[in-house]
Structure formats: C-alpha cells, structure tokens
C-alpha cells in the first residue's frame, strides 16, 4: 500500500452551528496529483484551511506526513507549500521582493528565488510591481511563493480560478512538470472536473461537506456501468426475458429497453438470447457515461 501524505480521519467541522464537514476521510498518496472536486460551497476551502492548520480542530484528525498538524505544524509547514484562493501578494512590492519576504521567513537559500522564478517562467517580470501583474502572472507568482522552500507537498486551492483557457493549459503543464520532474505531491481543489481530469491521478469528490467518492481516475470511470440500449419489435417481452436472466432494466419505452452491462461479450450473448426467443433486434447502442456526468450525478448537481 502506498504511503499517504495527507490523511484525515472522520473530520468534522462546524461554523456558527452549521456543519461544514461531515466525517471527511481523505487519503492522498505520495507522488500523486489529487484533485479535490466539489461544487461551490461544498467545503473545499474549509478542508484546505483545516489541512494547513489555519482553522483549528480539537482532535487528532488531520495528519500530514504521518504527523498531527496540531502538534507538528512547523515541521509540516517546512515541507508544504500552499496557494489558497487568490495569491497573497503585496501590491506595493515587486515579484522578487514578495518572494524575498517569504524566503526570509522560511530560511530558504537566496538562490531559490531565481530557481522558482525560472520554474514558473516569471524571471523577466521579477522586478515589476505586483499591481501591474495580470491575473495569470499573479497565479504563477503565487505558485512560486508556494515553491520557495522546495516543499514535498503542494496544496493548491483552485489554482486555475479566473484564468483564461490558455492560462489553464499553461497552469496544467506547470503542475504536471512539478509532479513528474520535481516529484511533488500535489493536492488541488477545483469545482470544474474538465479543468483537471487531464492532470490528476486521484480524485476526491465532496458535496455538502461529505466525501462522495475517493479513488483513482480509473476507479471513477469504472464507477458507472456502460448502458446498452436494445431497440426491438417488442420491448415488453424483451424486458420480461431480461428480468428472467436477473438483469436490471434501467429504462423501458415502447421502442427500446436500456440495461447496464459488464462487458462486450455480454452484448453478444444477450443478442443471441433475445433472437432465440423470436424477438427482432433493430439496434444495439452502447452509451458510456461522461466523467463530467458522473461528477454531476455524485454531487446532485443534475438529476441522475
């Protein structure tokens, strides 16, 4: 079993008597890019603030690098970089000075400033005042701040927020480079699956403070059985015959029957079975659910 860099155990959090998180158990494997997905207001930012110790918990429910955040915060901070919502930058200082300020606080070597500027491709803008930066440049510099102490873990809250499509693609490339070339474990939140599905290796889906799914991207894809739509001359008879075979009917109309199937071999055997029972088969249509729909179904954003 791979080592979990982030581990929460039945994490609960309430604010103003409102339950924000309910029994949240996160497992983020080392070396992964973990996408933490959920609609707005699902509890993603609260979870991230709890992971970083910015919000307090009473019990030992949050472990980073196997250590309780309440008792080992400084050690955990020396191995973690973060970017929460919009980057925290001082507008009256330039990029280099913002990095220098954080460098002084974490005690990283001075050469690290040039290194992180190179990684985020911001070296040419290092001496420009932040107030003259575009949103994309601010996000990049925010990421550079998160990288200043060369952390093993990056916790990023909606790093693509507000970026245009090309900015999103650039940020994706940058995060892949950090994971693949620099070996960083990345935990990032988003409310748009399509923005991160090309990036992540693992996914956690949260809605109304509850974790609806957690696993690899492959496991999420397997979560939904492909559907087979069988168009026939007698859908009622077809339905009865399929039920005799203990197959669940997902949908039935006068023209077709829809069922969930396990594999392609099953399509052939069912076809033979129905034809043998004197039914005319007009069409067999496979329907793979899109990942986006799975996410929307899990988060109750649309009707299943």
């Amino acid at each position, binding site marked *: 079993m791979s080592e979990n860099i982030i581990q929460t155990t039945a994490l609960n959090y309430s604010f103003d008597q409102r339950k924000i998180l309910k029994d949240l158990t996160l497992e983020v494997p080392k070396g992964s890019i973990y996408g933490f997905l959920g609609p707005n207001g699902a509890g993603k930012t609260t979870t991230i*603030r709890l992971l970083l110790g910015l919000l307090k918990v009473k019990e030992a429910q949050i472990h980073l690098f196997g250590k309780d955040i309440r008792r080992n915060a400084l050690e955990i901070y020396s191995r*973690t970089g973060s970017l*929460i919502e919009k980057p925290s930058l*001082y507008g009256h*200082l330039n990029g280099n000075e913002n990095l220098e*300020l954080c460098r002084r*606080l974490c005690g990283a070597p001075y050469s690290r400033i040039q290194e992180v500027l190179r990684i985020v491709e911001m070296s040419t803008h290092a001496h420009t005042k932040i107030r003259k930066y575009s949103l994309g440049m601010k996000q990049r510099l925010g990421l550079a701040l998160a990288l200043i*102490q060369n952390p093993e873990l990056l916790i990023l809250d909606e790093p693509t927020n507000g970026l245009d499509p090309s900015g999103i693609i650039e940020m994706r490339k940058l995060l892949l480079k950090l994971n693949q070339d620099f070996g960083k474990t990345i935990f990032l939140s988003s409310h748009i699956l399509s923005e991160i599905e090309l990036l992540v290796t693992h996914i956690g889906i949260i809605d109304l403070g509850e974790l609806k799914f957690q696993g690899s991207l492959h496991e999420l894809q397997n979560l939904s059985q492909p559907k087979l739509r069988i168009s026939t001359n007698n859908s009622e008879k077809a339905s009865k015959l399929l039920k005799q075979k203990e197959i669940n009917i997902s949908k039935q109309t006068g023209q077709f029957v829809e069922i969930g199937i396990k594999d392609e071999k099953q399509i052939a055997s069912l076809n033979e079975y129905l034809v043998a029972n004197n039914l005319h088969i007009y069409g067999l249509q496979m329907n793979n659910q899109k990942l986006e729909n799975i996410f929307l179904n899990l988060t109750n954003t649309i009707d299943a």
Partner: protein
Amino acid sequence: MNGLQHFGRALSAEQLKIKHSWAWRLVFLAPLFACGMYFCIFYFKGEHLIGESPAWNSYFFQSTDTVYLVLLPLFIILLNILVHQLDHNADSRKILYTLPTPKWIQVSAQWLNVVKLFTISMLIYLMVMLISGKLLEWLRPELGFDQASLDQKYYLAYFKGYLASFGILAFQFIFTYFLKNMVLPMGIGMAAYVSTLVLLRWKYIPFHPFAYGNLAFRDYFKTAELGNQLFTQPVLLSLSLTAFLLILGLLLVRRLDVK
C-alpha cells in the same frame, strides 16, 4: 532553528514589507509636518509667542505639547492602520502563517517593527526641532534663541512622553491587527482621541490611555520632583497597559482562525 533566528528572520521580513509603503513615508512626513508647522508659526509670529521663558524652551514646549496632545495620537492611529492594511489588503496571513516561523514570533516582530517606526519618527521630530530652532536662531536673531540653549529637562520630559505613548500604540496595534476593516479601528481610535480632548479637565483623565503622553510630558511643569522622575504615574500606567494588551493579544493570536 532557534527562537532568536526565527525572530531575526521575522523582523527582516517585516522591514521588507514596509518598503515603498505609505507607512514608511509617514514616519518621515509626520515629524516634518509637525516641526514645519511650528517653524512657520515662530518664524512669522514668534515675538508674540515667546514670553518670559527662554526662546528654545518656549519653542520646544509649545510644539511638543501640541504633538503629544493632538498630533501623536492621530499619527499612531494612522501608522497602525497603514502597517496592518498591508497584510489585510494582501490577505497574506493565510500564506505567512503556513510558513515555518511561529505565528506568535511573526506578530511580535510586527509589534517591534511598529515600535521601531514610532521611535524613528520621534527621533526625527527631535532632530528636526533642534535643527529648525538653530535655523530660527539664524533667520530671526531678535527672537533670542542664542541667549540660552534648550533646558536639559525637556529631553527627559520628551522621553517620558515617548514611553507614555506606548499605551496608545499597543491599543491601536491590537485593534488594527484583529479588525480587517480599517474603518473600525480608525473609528475606535478617533472616539478615544476626541474623548481625550473633551475630557481634558475631568478628574479621571490621568487614567485615559490617550492622555498619558501629554500628561507625562507635562509632569515637568507640575513639581520639580515629578519632573526629575522617569517612571511617573502616566508612564507606569502606559507601560502596564502595553504589557497587558500585548500578552492578551498574543493569547488571542494563538487561538486565531485564519478564515
């Protein structure tokens, strides 16, 4: 890494934070404004303002008395707001407090940085007062600045006023640290400031933190004994209040959730 190293790093980060900021400019502009104002008044109407006391004493007293009563509380309110708004506007605590320097050390460094700015400003004021007095001696010889130098006791009175102003400094520091909205700490500070001016003759005014600076400075003119003592009532009250507020502030910071 030991606490002192953390502290040194936090202090140097604070120093960088105020670079190019209005907080840093205010440190120079405020004493220049106060001195410049009294320089102009004495240059144009000095003969009406200097009584029987030596010109230097009269010049220094009238300017500094106004500073401690009227200008300094406003300066402290503004300085704290300008320093803390840098963090509030950048929403920087969510990143600073996830760096491996303890939160309480960062806040303590921030306090020491404000004290440093306040001290620099007070030193600039003193220096510019002495230079402007010399300038008046040269430009308006008839005012009599050459007849006697500034009484040494005024330096002690000035230092007492400085120490007695720490109460306001800590009071405003705590409010502006915790309140993101700059209007609230400004409103609280202005209310306290106005109440000092209104209640100046009230018998309990010695217990009003915003009056400590002026009362400590004026000790000298009550009795000679009080004038020679450093730790008089307003100074002690101010330093006690400062210690209390800082301890309370650090306890609150420990429990602070960064939302």
